[in-house]
């Protein structure tokens, strides 16, 4: 169904853009140097090395790339959720002037036609069937994006619709239609129905016996809506065919090597012939863990022999990546009169949608972190992920821990209410601490300042009452409804709520979660310079800033060059799970230490005989010099290095983890935990059901803030994404057709600057002795407790139960 056409010149083909020609596409990020006279090591708020490029508009994101003779790719997606494909006719599309190729499943070049992060269940292009709304069916390359869109619209696909399964009841019915027939993945053996991706029970102690001791038992059922990552830079990239028959992909992703492992087999190329370079990434938040347009662009480039760029628009982006799992959560908490938890039972049902993506790992997180940062000896937990015909769900910031935190924190408030205890005091009495045993049997072996974080966030001054009042009357911008001018304070009540959460850091359950760094040290223009080369995806988090800081601290240089991320160096693992500063930061630190040893050996060889300290003292590199730990200068690095370049590439690993037992959930599955607490202050217009979040204060333990400015920025950003799911963000999927109803920023709302309150942050630094510099991964924890704190505040203001998130006006006015 594919053919290559000679170039045509439609009326709207324009002159070539005024961009660089030849070689690498214009604007692929080149070397970023950060150098200054300041020391700029860890612990300082050094500024981003890519900051200037980003404020001048010169930083090249994946959607900005350009190549001479470049074509545009377009994907045709299924308009229905579940259907057999009876036929596909591409002839009209191919006949359109300017179209170079149209490809379907039948044109895939090898027997490998599926991909996936863990389970290879996702078709590169649909084969005989589509399983969700928006599934890719065919791809087009043309010389103008509008030509490509029009050609895709001319592809005739005959669908015969099938019934859909959309929730636990319909998916696990005995006669339910199977989303995937003939499953042979490694989870099928321990699930009770083929529409369950994975199940993880965790059983510890004796919940029945403990329940008998409880003075109060509180049950609750909760629903957590489907959230979108809504990163602003759309899925995009440029595939350039190479002379050796391979392809070079410039791409916005979270993990280059994971992409590579999935792309190369589909193309029928050895991995060394698929060269990957990270293009500028406009945010990620989990939504770029799975492949999007990577394989499609490469297929079209190899088929046409021309560079192919694909850029999703926002509508397509809502279909082009997985979302946060919606969840239904069932909880039972028991407690004694003196405010101690007796037991927790919970069941967490995650909707994974049509393909597995990261669902198994999300199940592992939701179950193992399912009761929160509390001491409970007797627990029964079960988490499952479903296969349904809803949009596929996978990774998003907080990854399974977010949904659970929303529910267990609501439960904690309910139990406190039953006992007549202050919610913070009740949490304090049950707060975990270092040494607590998790439901998985794993001891928490580093600081776990849960009670302290709550104390700190509670101690922050409250914003003034009636904060909207000004000398000129009510400022509607500070009120619920804002500029809609719906109230000047009438019907507005205030509420305050608290929540705290626990998130794991790094990949868990026995995954070999390593990273690689290559560090080079040499003299350039009379100065010692370090170059750090990793494959880490910088998605905005500031890893490049931190790498330069680590190199300065370890190697005593001011000039550090950050090499572009690509697959010419070993894997850095994923920019997710709050892991990159820990793991790739750890790899950079490790490689720097190895380089330092070689530099010192060079120094000893040349100068050792001049001073006994070369042999006897602990030696450091500081301020461009070799110094003793007593501060005595032994040599300039420039003299030690001379013409030599010292370079080391090395892998680095954190402590190994182990899988959770499939029956009991026991196992040392996690590397590290991360904790944050929030206090939300809201004002609610009870007549219209409108909410104004007035303040969202956060206290978080970060172990060690390598870059305090960036740390606070991460906490505020994560907090705001939690705010979004509390009061506005939800992908609405029609329960009858399983079609997405609101794939746009007009209908899927993320917080604007008017929706977002001030976010005071209190950073605690209690070192984790197992981690580099004592640091803790920080990116996700603030996304957990933000949502339940806002919900608690709204409950506090209104007295309503509110068992689902996001809260919409009809839930507050009684019209739901």
């Amino acid at each position, binding site marked *: 169904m594919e053919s290559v056409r000679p170039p045509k010149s439609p009326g709207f083909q324009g*002159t070539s*853009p005024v961009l660089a020609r030849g070689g690498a596409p214009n604007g692929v990020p080149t070397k970023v140097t950060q150098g200054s006279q300041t020391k700029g090591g860890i612990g300082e708020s050094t500024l981003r090395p890519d900051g200037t490029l980003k*404020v001048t*508009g010169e930083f090249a*994101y994946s959607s900005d790339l350009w190549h001479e003779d470049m074509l545009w790719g377009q994907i045709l997606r299924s308009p229905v959720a579940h259907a057999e494909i009876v036929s596909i006719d591409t002839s009209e599309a191919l006949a359109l002037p300017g179209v170079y190729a149209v490809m379907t499943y039948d044109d895939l070049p090898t027997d490998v036609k599926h991909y996936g992060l863990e389970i290879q269940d996702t078709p590169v292009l649909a084969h005989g069937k589509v399983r969700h709304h928006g599934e890719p069916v065919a791809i087009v390359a043309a010389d103008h994006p509008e030509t490509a869109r029009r050609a895709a619209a001319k592809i005739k696909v005959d669908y015969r619709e099938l019934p859909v399964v959309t929730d636990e009841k319909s998916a696990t019915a005995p006669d339910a239609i199977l989303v995937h027939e003939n499953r042979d993945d490694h989870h099928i053996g321990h699930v009770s129905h083929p529409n369950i991706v994975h199940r993880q029970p965790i059983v510890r102690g004796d919940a029945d016996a403990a329940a008998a001791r409880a003075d109060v038992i509180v049950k609750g059922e909760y629903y957590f809506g489907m959230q979108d990552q809504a990163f*602003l830079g*759309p899925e995009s990239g440029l595939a350039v065919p190479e002379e050796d028959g391979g392809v070079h992909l410039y791409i916005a992703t979270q993990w280059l090597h994971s992409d590579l492992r999935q792309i190369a087999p589909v193309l029928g190329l050895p991995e060394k012939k698929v060269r990957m370079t990270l293009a500028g990434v406009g945010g990620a938040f989990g939504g770029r863990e799975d492949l999007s347009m990577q394989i499609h662009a490469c297929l079209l480039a190899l088929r046409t022999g021309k560079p192919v760029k694909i850029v999703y628009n926002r509508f397509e982006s809502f279909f082009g990546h997985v979302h946060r799992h919606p969840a239904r959560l069932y909880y039972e908490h028991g407690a004694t009169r003196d405010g101690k938890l007796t037991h927790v039972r919970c069941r967490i049902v995650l909707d994974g949608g049509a393909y597995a993506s990261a669902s198994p790992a999300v199940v592992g997180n939701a179950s193992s972190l399912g009761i929160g940062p509390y001491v409970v000896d007797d627990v029964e937990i079960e988490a499952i992920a479903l296969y349904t015909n809803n949009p596929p769900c996978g990774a998003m910031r907080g990854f399974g821990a977010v949904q659970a935190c929303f529910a267990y924190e609501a439960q904690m408030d309910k139990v406190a209410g039953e006992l007549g205890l202050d919610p913070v005091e009740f949490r304090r009495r049950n707060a975990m601490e270092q040494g607590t045993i998790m439901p998985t049997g794993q001891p928490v072996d580093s600081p776990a300042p849960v009670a302290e974080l709550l104390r700190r966030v509670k101690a922050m001054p409250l914003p003034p009452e009636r904060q909207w009042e000004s000398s000129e009357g009510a400022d509607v911008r500070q009120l619920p409804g804002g500029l809609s001018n719906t109230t000047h304070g009438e019907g507005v009540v205030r509420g305050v709520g608290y929540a705290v959460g626990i998130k794991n850091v790094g990949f868990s359950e026995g995954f070999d979660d390593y990273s690689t760094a290559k560090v080079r040290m040499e003299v350039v223009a009379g100065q010692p310079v370090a170059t750090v080369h990793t494959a880490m995806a910088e998605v905005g988090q500031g890893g490049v800033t931190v790498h330069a800081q680590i190199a300065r601290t370890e190697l005593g240089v001011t000039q550090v060059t950050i090499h572009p991320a690509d697959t010419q160096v070993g894997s850095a693992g994923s920019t997710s799970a709050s892991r990159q500063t820990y793991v790739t930061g750890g790899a950079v630190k490790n490689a720097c230490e190895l380089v330092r040893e070689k530099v010192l050996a060079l120094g000893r060889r040349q100068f050792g005989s001049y001073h006994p300290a070369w042999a006897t003292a602990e030696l450091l590199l500081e301020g461009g010099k070799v110094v003793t730990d007593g501060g005595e200068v032994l040599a300039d690095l420039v003299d030690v290095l001379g013409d030599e370049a010292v370079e080391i590439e090395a892998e680095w690993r954190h402590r190994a983890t182990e899988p959770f037992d499939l029956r009991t959930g026991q196992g040392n599955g996690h590397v590290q935990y991360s904790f944050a607490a929030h206090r939300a202050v809201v004002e609610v217009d009870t007549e219209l059901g409108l909410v104004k979040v007035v303040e969202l204060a956060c206290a978080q333990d970060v172990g060690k803030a390598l870059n305090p400015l960036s740390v606070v920025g991460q906490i505020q950003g994560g907090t*705001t994404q939690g705010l979004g799911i509390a009061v506005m963000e939800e992908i609405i999927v029609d329960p009858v057709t399983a079609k997405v109803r609101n794939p746009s920023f007009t209908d899927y709302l993320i917080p604007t600057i008017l929706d977002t309150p001030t976010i005071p942050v209190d950073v605690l630094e209690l070192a984790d002795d197992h981690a580099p510099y004592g640091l803790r991964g920080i990116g996700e924890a603030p996304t957990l407790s933000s949502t339940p704190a806002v919900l608690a505040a709204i409950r506090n203001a209104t007295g309503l139960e509110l068992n689902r998130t996001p809260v919409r006006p009809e839930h507050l006015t009684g019209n739901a």
Partner: protein
Amino acid sequence: MRVNFTVNGRPQEADDVWEGESLLYVLRERLGLPGSKNACEQGECGSCTVRLDGVPVCSCLVAAGQAEGREVVTVEGLADYARQRSWGAAPGAPLDSPSGEGTDSLTGEGAELAPIQQAFIDAGAVQCGFCTPGLLVAADEMLEHNPDPSDADIREALSGNLCRCTGYEKIMDAVRLAAARQSEGV
């Protein structure tokens, strides 16, 4: 069709423009100015904000033909625009000395920046940076007519610009910083 307009003080001519192309597309794909961003292309996110005859607009919602004969300022021209404003020259006048000379092509360091650009870097208002160009154009325009904005003023002026990374706090800091530096004449 052919479209003639002025971009960042320089006359530009785009040929063979299809009538359906937006100003954003012509800037990004035909004039080599990809600084204005394409986050939603439906007027909701503000990442494509440019000045059109001085007025901030979503360039994704402006048909390229509507720009005929008009003055456009993008993030790429913001530093020059701010510099000319500080000299009292008419914004949009041809440039005497384009900035960028002596700039490190690898990092952009050494580039002359508008005060709002420098403030975004210094305050930590840039993470992924995709919203940054539109926010800079919008914030610069606000400070032009409101040099001493209240926090509520800043939020109102920037409410058409989505950011997904920062939670907006550092953006607030950056605008306050730029306003303070402006009032101190720094």
